[in-house]
């Protein structure tokens, strides 16, 4: 049995930002202020018009941040729905990368899978081959940054290649928004989730270029220009706009330095550690670290006992935790993959927190090694 002294649990360190980000206090304030407004935004009376106003003001705010027209933004219940909507609405061949979120990867049974290289970056040669094979204009879905590894894709190059073949490029920007620059004009369609950037759960955006031929699947009262019917989640929409406003003004440089320090510290103490994607562009807050000789589920229990919340990968697919299809697609050695945990720092994660995290990591590592040595002795 591993014996690790349980830390005083009053201090909890949340380093699972890629699963969800705590609601920003400014967002909460904005949403609570909106609680006094009642009515259905589709109603023509004064209460309804006020609600409509709030929805459209939020849309305007987000469009301005992205430097796009408001008619490109469709509000929906989240990024899973946004990804589903674009894939189900597109009548034509679809190409998705092997490391996409499950809400992209598994929607279309007929989707062609584009492979990634060992660094987790989409193989442009393979993508080009797949594009050449398509008889019609294809929809290519590649995420801006991966949720598990934080690895960033060469969005501009992909966009150029897709457009060269007359295709359309859908980019899942859930993890990218606010944490890296995105050229919104270069992509034809994108999905954003509010709760990953300090906004509320239950709301997201599908951004679409009017040139893509789409046939939207849901029917109803004609909301969102009939593209996505259903009474608007007004509070959620207000919260999302505020969250984006806050996120676009944020600076992640310090967080990146702390992440880099964490990795430097750990690799110095334990040179045999593997850090996935360390040599390529990554999100500033994400680190996927493989501890040698100990399963990630074991590690998570130890981290949790020490008041640190991290994860093994995507929250959606927990339950099947130890098998990451992302790492498999990158041909990471299964032994390395088994030891991988995802640390995703928040913007307010302090140096002290990171230090504690690093010490805890090392403590788990050494105890495990001592135990292994005792067993073999």
């Amino acid at each position, binding site marked *: 049995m591993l014996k690790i002294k349980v830390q005083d649990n009053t201090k909890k360190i*949340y380093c*699972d930002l890629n*699963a*969800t980000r*705590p*609601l920003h206090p400014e967002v*909460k304030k904005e*949403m*609570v202020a909106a*609680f006094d407004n*009642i*009515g*259905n935004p*589709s*109603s*023509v*009376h*004064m*209460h*309804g018009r006020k609600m409509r106003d709030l929805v459209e003001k939020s849309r305007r705010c987000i469009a301005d941040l992205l430097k796009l027209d408001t008619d490109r933004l469709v509000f929906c*219940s989240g990024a*899973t*729905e946004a*990804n*589903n909507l674009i894939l189900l609405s597109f009548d034509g061949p679809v190409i998705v990368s092997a490391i996409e979120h*499950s809400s*992209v990867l*598994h*929607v279309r049974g007929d989707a062609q899978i584009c492979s990634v290289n060992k660094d987790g970056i989409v193989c442009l040669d393979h993508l080009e081959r797949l594009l050449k094979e398509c008889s019609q204009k294809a929809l290519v879905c590649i995420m801006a940054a991966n949720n598990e590894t934080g690895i960033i894709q060469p969005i501009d190059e992909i966009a150029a290649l897709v457009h060269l073949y007359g295709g359309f490029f859908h980019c899942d920007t859930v993890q990218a928004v606010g944490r890296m620059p995105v050229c919104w004009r270069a992509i034809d369609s994108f999905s954003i*989730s509010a*709760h990953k950037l300090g906004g*509320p*759960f*239950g*709301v997201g955006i599908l951004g679409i270029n009017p040139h893509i031929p789409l046939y939207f*699947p*849901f*029917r*109803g*009262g*004609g*909301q969102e220009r009939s593209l996505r*019917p*259903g*009474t*608007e*989640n*007004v*509070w959620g929409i207000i919260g999302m706009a505020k969250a984006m406003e806050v996120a676009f003004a944020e600076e992640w440089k310090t967080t990146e330095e702390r992440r880099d320090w964490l990795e430097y510290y750990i690799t110095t103490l334990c040179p045999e550690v593997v850090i996935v994607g360390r040599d390529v562009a990554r999100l500033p807050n994400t680190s996927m670290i493989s501890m040698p000789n100990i399963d990630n589920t074991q590690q998570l229990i130890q981290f*949790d006992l020490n008041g640190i*919340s991290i*994860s*093994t990968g*995507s*929250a*959606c*697919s*927990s*339950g099947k*935790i130890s098998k990451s299809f992302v790492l498999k697609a990158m041909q990471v050695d299964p032994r390395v993959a088994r030891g991988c945990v995802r640390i995703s720092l928040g913007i307010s994660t302090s140096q002290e927190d990171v230090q504690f995290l690093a010490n805890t990591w090392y403590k788990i590592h050494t105890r495990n090694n001592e135990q292994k040595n005792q067993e073999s002795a």
Partner: protein
Amino acid sequence: MHKVYLDYQATTPCDPRVVEKMLPYFSEKFGNPHSRNHSFGWEAEEAVEKARTQIAHLINADPKEIIFTSGATESNNLALRGVAGFYGHKKNHIITSVIEHKCILDTCRHLQEQGFKITYLPVSNNGLVNHEDVKNAIKDATCLVSIMAVNNEIGVIQPISEIGKICREYGVFFHTDAAQAIGKMHVDVKAMEIDLMSISSHKIYGPKGIGVLYVSRKPRVRLNAMITGGGQERGMRSGTLAPMLCVGFGEACVLAQQNMSKEIEQLKALTARFYEGITSQLDDVYLNGDNGKRIPGNLNFSFAYVEGEGLMMSMKDLCVSSGSACTSASLEPSYVLRAIGVGEDLAHTSIRFGLGRFTTQEEVDYAIKRVVESVRKLRAMSPLYDMAKAGIDIKSIQWAAH
């Protein structure tokens, strides 16, 4: 007098008690309910599951039969498309009524384009579906009957138990859109033999952006999912759940359950007062929909010789609507009213008054006063009203083309 909100069928204000339960999920309880690796996730999951139980309890379902969605529109789409997708290759006939919510009718039209056969049952002049019609319309190829529990425009209550019984007898799945029924009448999915049921949170004093599809496990209904991904909600509806919305919806159900009998009595009294106030002071006013079989809190009136939009404009301090909120921006007369045989002239004069939990007697009295004043004023200016009072049959007039 400030504005009086009388549009409770369009949406209801979120109850302050609901908001209070939601607030912790705006700050310290921020976890992703699907994070299985830490306490933030567990806490959120626990909250979601508690809410699921609360909702199930209100309709006498098992928590496992509750599938969270983004609202009743999505629930309705999922029920129809889900059943059609799973069973459609064997059975391709669906029965519905002509006065369903737009999202049901449009989804049916879309399924029709894909080769499904749809029977649109008519309703009588009181707005009710005849359950014998349902029985007669069932064929071997019928996979689903979808009849709303309560109509959103005219508030009539359909014979759900009877239809449920028939469907069970013939082995056909029965879906009901109960967005307008929950909290205003007793709904028991087991006793009423309902297989699928859509509920909306914002119609029962909960937050917007969340709804539920009840999917029976016994008999087992299987669905093709519309939104796939992480496999949440037993694979029927993927996407991260919103704990704050789930918690709000759950609390709204608890409040509905606690207060329903009291609230029904209270609303019955207010609605009767409103009805009495209007009909005793104005002639040529018609109540649309059955007078008895309707939810308390809904009154849909046609004020002959008065233009509905004009009437709404002349009593701007009353927030009412001329029909469903979704279509209220269009000036088309309501298809529901046309279906119950209201002539085009009268359909244009109709207004829906929706009373609810926070409506007071003062507000009702004020509304009566304003309606009576406005109708009288508009009629005084109406040549049609003068002609009618002089005994001319308006319908017989041959209007010159412009």
